[in-house]
């Protein structure tokens, strides 16, 4: 039993690391798309007149798209985090084999990080 003590901490930690990496990845993706909007505005603003579906111009299409995209990414993030947290919680409950695996993969991640 004493050996199983650190297991819950490790799985929770693993979920946290997953959430943090996913968050940074999604934020970077969004930042690139956002920078694209700013870039077009500054370097070639007439490109924003381009006709898009529904008779919208690119500026409105891109602008509305940035808002909808943020929401989609947020939902994706939330689902992924919830799934990971559930897995971590299951790992805590079910103790041994799965949790062992989780510990293994988390320490592997740590090594690759460093």
């Amino acid at each position, binding site marked *: 039993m004493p050996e199983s003590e650190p297991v819950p901490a490790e799985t929770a930690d693993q979920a946290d690391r997953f959430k943090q990496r*996913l968050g940074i990845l*999604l934020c970077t993706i969004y930042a690139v798309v956002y920078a694209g909007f700013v870039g077009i505005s500054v370097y070639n603003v007439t490109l924003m*007149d381009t006709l898009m579906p*529904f008779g919208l111009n690119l500026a409105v299409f891109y*602008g509305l798209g940035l808002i909808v995209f943020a929401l989609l*990414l947020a939902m994706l993030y939330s689902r992924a985090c919830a799934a990971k947290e559930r897995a971590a919680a299951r790992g805590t409950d079910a103790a041994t084999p799965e949790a062992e695996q989780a510990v293994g993969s988390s320490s592997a991640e740590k090594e690759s990080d460093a």
Partner: protein
Amino acid sequence: MTAVAIFIGFVAFLFWLSWFLGRKAKSADSFFVAGGQIHWFVNGIALTGGYLSAASFLGICGMIAFKGFDGYLYSIGFLSGWVVALFVVAEPLRRLGKYTFADALGARFESRTIHLAAGISTLVICICYLVPQMVGAGVLIEPLLGIAHHWGVILVGAVVIVVVASAGMASTTYVQFIKAGMLITFSAVLVGAVCVRGLESTPDTVNAKGEAVPHYAFRSVALEAGPDLQQALTGTAFQYVDSLRLESGSGSQGSQTWVLLDELALLEEDGDGQTYHLVRGGQRLPVVRDPDGAIAGLLRDIPAPERATSEDRQITLQAVRVVEKGGQPHARLEGWWLMQEGPDGQSILHEAQDVTTVDGSMYINGLPATGEHSLLSMGRISQFGSRSGHDGQRGPMGPLTLLSVFADPGTEAQLPRTANLRHRGRDVTLYYHQSVAGNELMRPGGHFDITAGSIWHRLDFISLMVALFCGTAALPHVLIRYYTVRDSAAARRSTIVAISAIGLFYILTLFLGLGAIANGVLNPQTDNMSAPLLARSFGEVLFAIITALAFATVLGTVSGLIVAASGAVANDLMDRFLNRSMSGTSKVLAAKLTAVSVGVLAVVLGILFRGINVGFLVGWAFAVAASANFPAIIMVLFWKRTTAAGIISSILVGIVASLGIILAGPDMFKLYGLAESSAWVPLGQPAIVSMPLSLLTLVVVSLLTPNGKSSSQSVAVDA
């Protein structure tokens, strides 16, 4: 009266609610974070309520109505900031902290000075953010109650101070929850009404008293070009008086030629034979009372044969010059016209409105300003492009069709603009229409002049977008709400609820701003009023509800900010920095005293910043937050080498640099009454300089100081 009754009823309801819920909040914990017991959905909508400030509603709609797409940049930026807040900052920060941003930093560093720096930054950002809320409050109250701007500001200040000092966070959470839900609902109703009414080029509108009046089309007169304007005007109702060339200080508009013309307007005699009305710009104005029969005398005294040429005879009654022509009394009025080159070498004169101060009294369009006589509302679509297939008739249209009509290059919108000149020793403010093509209206560049040659305008634009992206996560009153729910998952769900609600609302702002142009309701003196005035064109009830909700929005945001500021002073400055171990009760007392002082300061600044777009002002608050707090937050979470000294110097450098650039920049110079070109710093938006500077300071100072007191594991360990 209905409007005022609905408005007062709503505000009274909020008072009752905060009192009712506030009875439960007695301990220090419940004052600051409502005991961590708020449901995630309620918290999410309350986050929305705290975030959707007067700036979102009044400022963005107003800037879209006056400048087009650039107002919408704020919507996009304000929402995008949540991406950083949710994905990067929310959860790790929640694992670190208790009450405030400073506590979160304090969880990693045992430094009292860090509490001082974080407390100061919270206070400064709160005040920067409070100013536009107060300006917005004054703007709302002015048309509703007919009182001066500064009384509106004082009223909001008083209400909020009472609400916060008597209750605290528990009440504001629920107040914001209800208010945010209703604000989004009624904004959607208003957008629905705009779409159902549709677009036409001569929309009926409402006057300053809220009465429906037919559309007034500002006149244009085409003249054969020639050196002699006086001769060209022969045979028209106008006489040439003077003309002035106005060199534009900045922007791409170049110079303007303004022409002052004399016009005879018929005076209609009232039934009592003593009052004379003038129909001008769709307003029927009682302009002259004639107790001594002076006008009748003027008409009678002249022998009939001479009457046709008797314009040189005049009397002045109540500052209106009355002349006689064709046996009828006329008012001789001067008005300013903007001269532009037309096709075929013609000169076209466009009618403008003016506010002129003569010997201390104010004249509007040549007549003394009274309650009944005010500036006409402006803005309209003068021409519809053919691409969208819209026939120019009013009638229901889909929201996307509405956007496509505006974006059509063949569509032409008329937007109010302002010019100032001095004439005969008098200060004249002119309001005129500028025609903007649909494609230019609906792309960036209306406010931030990115197409002009100057690199500074482009930098301003980029700088704003950076500030909005990074600023949200660094705002103190947003961060504090991560602690009002039970756990990380709840905080995340709250944030997603908030993003959905805020995203929906920001999509609505685009329609509200464009709707305000199309319905010709714009007050040329301030863009902040556009959304409530749009509501007014759909009746007094909708106007009252929207105004009450916007007022509540101000109230909610201001409460949230003042709670954050009080928390900073009570927890960071007094408890931690001065190391006075305070009991829960005296902590709450200190917080309440801070609430009162910060509230009073915000009221004073709110009066001084009158007339500036509130969305623009909030953009500055975001810039200060992004410069002062953002590098500190990010580096504490992701760089193990960060030291307390690095954080402290970064926060202080961020505050000083961002505020310094704003205060020395062109926009503030305009407010000081100086030329924009004489500004010490050519940059109006500071973040692109001040944020990297703050980050660099953090890195350099951290590397120069020992890493002793930090515990690098604290981020990963769940508290």
